[in-house]
């Protein structure tokens, strides 16, 4: 049982192969730089924000939608917290609450726009919202960046910046094991919840139904509009979570910080097996997709690759990863057909 499940997982995730190959290549070419515990922890840290955003994006993609506002929304959350801190509020719970509330509200507006106005596709509403939220983030911060260091919110900053199980060389402050980044532990917790949510709850399954065949969902009495509204609200909430993590990770709030987030999240989901036509995608696939992206960036940085080379390599790897997946699916279908004989 467990074994077959593992096998299934492996089969389903052709990208895991791509990830493994990539790691292997980097390990061989840069054993001294890449193949270090500390570096692997770095990769996890670097993937965290993308993972959180991608989890919400995944739900939108499963419903055959998209949420282009996640990047701006994440930034808006951080900026909200930044402005509050500037005005002297340092209660971490209050800050987290307000940050999440703002992002969740923005997500809810996305969903409402889509479903109540009967917009044809969330691309429009979320692209519109992306601009609106970006503008808001700039307005509230006065287009200035706000630094969090030494503002008395170290507890909050620990979420994004702290590590567990850090060990030091005896009697020094020299780090032996840099610890597991708490942000990644958070990601794992969130992803386990998502996994259960998507696979085992009624609402989770309804998300797949709405994406796979909206007409069937409607005829089966699934309240598609509510499900969609929920999905975009959830996506907003997850963007907020990412915003909270970035408080500690970036130690600053800047209205322009989110420009690359949307595409990174989409790439993680798609590379991880989700599809624009909806009904497909798993959270673990998304994790692998996000890690794949993080590993490429990390490896190229370690190799000292320039911007331009990085663009070319990242582009190629994205295409390659998906190609491997498509190829593996075809092989599998062929094998099934042969077995049917």
């Amino acid at each position, binding site marked *: 049982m467990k074994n077959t499940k593992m096998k299934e997982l492996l089969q389903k995730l052709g990208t895991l192969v791509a990830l493994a190959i990539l790691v292997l290549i980097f390990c061989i070419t840069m054993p001294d730089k890449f193949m270090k515990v500390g570096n692997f922890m770095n990769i996890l840290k*670097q993937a965290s924000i993308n993972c959180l955003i991608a989890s919400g994006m995944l739900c939108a993609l499963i419903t055959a939608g998209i949420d282009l506002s996640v990047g701006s929304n994440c930034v808006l959350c951080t900026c909200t917290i930044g402005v509050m801190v500037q005005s002297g509020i340092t209660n971490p719970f209050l800050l987290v609450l307000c940050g999440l509330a703002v992002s969740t509200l923005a997500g809810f507006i996305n969903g409402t726009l889509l479903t109540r106005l009967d917009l044809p596709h969330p691309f429009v509403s979320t692209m519109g919202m992306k601009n609106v939220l970006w503008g808001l983030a700039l307005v509230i911060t006065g*287009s*200035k*960046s706000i630094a969090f260091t030494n503002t008395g919110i170290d507890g909050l900053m620990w979420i994004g910046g702290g590590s567990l199980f850090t060990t030091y060389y005896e009697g020094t402050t020299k780090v032996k094991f840099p610890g597991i980044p708490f942000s990644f532990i958070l990601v794992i917790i969130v992803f386990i919840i998502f996994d259960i949510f998507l696979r085992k709850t009624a609402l989770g399954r309804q998300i797949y139904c709405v994406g796979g065949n909206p007409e069937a969902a409607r005829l089966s009495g699934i309240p598609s509009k509510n499900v969609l509204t929920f999905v975009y609200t959830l996506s907003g909430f997850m963007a907020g979570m990412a915003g909270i993590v970035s408080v500690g*990770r*970036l*130690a600053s709030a800047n209205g322009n910080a989110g420009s690359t987030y949307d595409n990174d999240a989409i790439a993680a989901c798609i590379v991880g097996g989700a599809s624009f036509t909806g009904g497909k995608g798993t959270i673990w696939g998304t994790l692998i997709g996000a890690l794949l992206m993080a590993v490429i*960036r*990390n490896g190229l940085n370690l190799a000292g690759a320039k911007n331009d080379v990085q663009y070319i390599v990242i582009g190629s790897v994205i295409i390659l990863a998906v190609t491997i997946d498509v190829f593996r699916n075809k092989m599998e279908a062929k094998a099934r057909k042969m077995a049917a004989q």
Partner: protein
Amino acid sequence: ACGGKKTEAPADTENKTGTETETPTTGDVKVAVVLKTLASEYWGYVEAGCKAAGDDLGVDVVVVGPGAESDIEGQVSMIEQQIGAGCDAIVCAPNDAGAAQGALQAAIDAGIPVLAVDTNVGIAGQTSFVGTSNVDAAYEGGKWAIEQAGTDAKAVIIYGQEGDNTSNMRMEGYEKACTEAGVEVLAKLSGNNLTDGATKAMEDLLSAYPDQIDIVLCHNDDTAIGAMNACKSAGVSDITIVGFDGNASAVKLILDGELVKATVAQQPYEMGYQVVEAAVKAVKLEPVDEVINAPVQVVTAENGQAYLDNLEAMKG
């Protein structure tokens, strides 16, 4: 369309350009300012300076800028619009000098004075350039860091967007400082001008060169904050990070004794103020210097408080 000749050639002395009409009174003077973007702290200071000058001189100042420094076409459009909407002088901080030259030619042709701020346009017939060379400014920052860390130090550079002119110039300045002092540059990575990108880049640099990096030279303050994050979470404390832009948030970190030890401030407010001043002079056909140098300041723990107070005062 190049080089349209005026019918009545004005006294074409070195630096001033005149129009055929009589000198307008300051009340009607309209100065259009097209900056690289408005959505950032640095350009916010420039904007504030421009507006302050406008108020002080009693002229109408419009400040616009595209949403991002990479939006070259957006900026060209803005220049066209401002010329089209009518202005007596136009000030530009070009996202791409070549592109701006193309768009500003119409102003030159129409006899409208063209001034550059922060980054030179370099168009033939340009009235004035107010700013500092990014190369020199970065050089100052680099030199300061090397003074602190010693010439046997090793440095890394985290740059902005490759292909971006400003980034290229700051890179040149930093490198110049390092080669002069014989400081080895271990690596150069892009942080895409974002804190997120810079944090990742610095984490990776620390991984690649453990215990070797003494100096981190950054192309802006957000980048410096990112580098600081990475160092802190890696437990690195003996490192000198230099930012660029002189943003208040960065200066506060410097004063707090964080790893960001300095930021190169180009006096954006001053630049903004002076360029509008120069523009008004040009409109009034008064002589204007071809290059107006804004002073560069390396803001450190020593002069940081004064700098901040100054910023505060300017806002008020």
